[in-house]
């Protein structure tokens, strides 16, 4: 034995250093994915604006059944792009604030947007007195479209958005708190997950370059979440109400959702954006 075990150990240790530590993403490689993300957000916003128009038209016409049906599929486009939408704090409050954000609850004059309308439609079973709220929502969504068009997306917000979407799922969707009157949380859930997965997919090749195993793990967890959610799909492509979700499925979602939130929170660092 010529080599000392010490030298051998050191050599082994060096060999064990993950190569990922040495491979850094070149900043300009992120231009493609960041711009593709803006294109995705723009498309989602176009859908949001179109659907919101139909939704608010139904509300104003007093067509309660149609309005109830359109509520969740409309919102989903907001949920998928929340990392960008919620950068505009005033619009996020007027479009998507929940009753808890307001001291005077449902009576608060500044409680507007989706959840205020949801309250009337699903809790009071009525479209009465919603005209102004419907117009306001339409206007706010159009305003959001304009502002997003003029916004240069901060790359760290784009990349960080994947984790914040999954954190949102962990914090507000697993408990079934967001759509408390309509119980259509699974739409929002899927919207958040799709939005997070989109971001991950756009940066996939940069991530795989540095950490193949990480990418595989994230994929596996996304697949688990999607598989459980798919059980609750309805014939028309929608979702069952949240109270239908079985306890074992709810529990089975907690692990992958939290792991995704945690894993995706390392993306900024992995892509050199911290």
């Amino acid at each position, binding site marked *: 034995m010529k080599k000392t*075990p*010490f030298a051998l150990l050191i050599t082994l240790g060096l060999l064990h250093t993950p190569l990922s530590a040495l491979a850094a993403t070149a*900043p*300009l490689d992120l231009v493609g994915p960041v*711009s593709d993300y803006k294109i995705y957000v723009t498309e989602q916003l176009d859908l949001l604006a179109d659907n919101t128009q139909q939704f608010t038209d139904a509300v104003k016409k007093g067509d309660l059944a149609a309005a109830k049906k359109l509520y969740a599929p409309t919102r989903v486009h907001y949920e998928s792009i929340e990392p960008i939408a919620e*950068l505009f704090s005033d619009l996020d409050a007027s479009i998507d604030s929940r009753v808890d*954000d307001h001291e005077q609850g449902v009576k608060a004059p*500044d409680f507007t947007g989706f959840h205020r309308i949801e309250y009337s439609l699903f809790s009071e079973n009525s479209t009465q007195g919603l005209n102004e709220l419907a117009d306001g929502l339409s206007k706010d969504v159009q305003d959001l479209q304009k502002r997003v068009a003029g916004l240069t997306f901060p*790359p760290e917000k784009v990349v960080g958005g994947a984790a*914040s979407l999954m954190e949102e799922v962990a914090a507000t969707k697993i408990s079934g708190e967001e759509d408390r009157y309509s119980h259509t949380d699974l739409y929002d859930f899927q919207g958040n997950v799709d939005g997070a997965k989109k971001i991950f997919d756009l940066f996939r090749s940069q991530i795989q370059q540095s950490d193949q195993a990480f990418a595989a793990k994230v994929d596996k967890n996304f697949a688990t979440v999607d598989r459980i959610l798919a059980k609750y799909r309805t014939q028309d492509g929608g979702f069952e109400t949240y109270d239908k979700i079985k306890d074992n499925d709810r529990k089975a979602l907690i692990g992958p959702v939290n792991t995704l939130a945690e894993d995706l929170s390392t993306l900024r660092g992995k892509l050199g954006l911290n």
Partner: protein
Amino acid sequence: MPTPASVTPPRAMRWAVAGSVIVMIAAGALFYYASQLAAAKRKAHSSEITVTIHPHSCEPDSLSVPAGVNSFRIVNASERAVEWEILDGVLVVEERENIAPGLSQVINATLAPGDYAITCGLLSNPRGTLHVTPTAQSQASAKARPSLVAFIGPLSEFRVYLNSQGNALITAVDALSQAIATGDLAQARALYLPAREAYQRLAPAAQRLAELDNAINARADYFEKREQDPGFGGFHRIEYGLFSQSSTQGLGVFAQQLHANAVLLKQQLLAQSLPPGQLVSIVARTLHNLADTRAGSGEEERYSHIDLSGFAANLQTTRKVVDLLRPLLAKNNAELLQRIDTASTALEAELNSFKTPQGYITYDTVSDLRRQAISNKAKALADALDGIDPALGL
């Protein structure tokens, strides 16, 4: 039965034992070093700023911190889950959602000097203020050349612009092509203009793709037999047919080719990566070219004379680029930015002076003197733009 003590360990074993002792000592030393390092890091974080959220207010509700990385510990002393945000105007700089009642969370934010607002729980609660003071380091970094990371945003946004303008070009060429297919000369003439405007917005970037750009935009001068040359195609071949020969006859095949090439152009523009140093130089080149030849000669649209709308479209893309770099330039060389804005306003005013309610007048009615004025203003802007790359260290 021999006692174990009487057996001499083999030589290799003695080496191994010695080796593991050394490894253990080394590991111990490393552990000590790492824990010291971690302690030092914790110490750096101990300068956390605590903000307590009460049911109706924050405490403190007015903060002043130095620029750079700051850690805020948000303590939720209210009865509801709250979110905490740092706002620059209406824009969220940093936020943490769903801080549960009775718990606290830490937010690390990298802040540039300036005045921000902080949210304090319920939407109706008064907001607090956050004043970020400059430091020697923040002032130095404001003057330093921006890192490559700073160009990701502007370059991404320019790629998005190429995507939307590419779509606009395809749509406009499609409409033109349909008018030609139905033999509607008046309609085809009218639709040539918006299609050219869409192209002229892309022209600075399209010019990097030499061959494809020639197929789309080459003038008759570049072909041996000029208008009669079988290789002459693209926009100007169609323009020649519509405006010089006053007919849509035989233009269908050129329109179809142009449509296919417009689709290809969009694809290739999105596939090309544009280095930061080229973002400005491509628009500067287009404006220099405008100043040096196109303004004086009116050669570009020699059959339709719609040159002015093309110049305006070039200027729009130039402004887009300047706006994308505006935050970097404002920090780095505000005086240059001022000069660029002045020059671009002057060129726009000059072009606007040819506008009528029906659009721009045709270029054949613009005198040499006034063409010279356009050229001078385009040159002033192009020269100012040339200052950007050196100012940003590109």
